[in-house]
């Protein structure tokens, strides 16, 4: 019974990422969209937090949001999504937690 966590706010300004990583279960997934994709930027504190999480989770990001922001990706196992793939993920997981 896994959860898809959707984050949309800047990891620098908001506590979404911090709190999400605390309550993430093994096998859950995180989708970064909007300003939340800044967490993938190489060398950023947020990228280090994502790398340091001690539970196995899947990481996704919306490709157009990443491309728009000229993000040099940190060394993270991230899968980039288009909108149809995003929708498919939402259906795949038992529940969706959209952090606001």
């Amino acid at each position, binding site marked *: 019974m896994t959860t898809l966590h959707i984050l949309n706010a800047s990891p620098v300004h908001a506590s979404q990422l911090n709190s999400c990583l605390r*309550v993430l279960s093994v096998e859950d997934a995180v989708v970064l969209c909007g300003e939340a994709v800044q967490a993938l930027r190489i060398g950023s504190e947020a990228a280090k937090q994502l790398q340091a999480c001690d539970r196995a989770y899947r990481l996704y990001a919306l490709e157009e949001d990443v491309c728009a922001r000229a993000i040099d990706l940190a060394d993270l196992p991230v899968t980039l999504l288009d909108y149809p793939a995003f929708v498919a993920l939402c259906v795949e997981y038992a529940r969706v937690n959209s952090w606001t």
Partner: protein
Amino acid sequence: MIKSVLLISRQAPWAGLGAAEALDIALAAGAFDLPLSILFMDDGVLQLLDKQQPQTLEQKDLSANLQALPLFGIEQLYVAQHCLAQRGLDHRTLAVAAEVLDDSQIQQLIRQYDYVMTL
């Protein structure tokens, strides 16, 4: 089949409408006998403080809505331990009784519900 909902309330009572709207959702769910629990996290834990004076900011007092939750069948309130600690708060001083959970207990809690809503 009736689905269960975990509502995660993360906003301070004075920082916009999120806190009030979360409580409205909870009361509405309770009125329709939907199984719903609330987890207070991040600045949402501040909703539980005693002796607030929102009228000094010309804002609505949410404490009556909180006190009404049990009357609407919303019995189970949870609060994140690390969020209380970050803000220097002790659960014994809260206006409403809520079960204090650590991170791994919250991980388990989320898995028990059909839907999760975060406000």
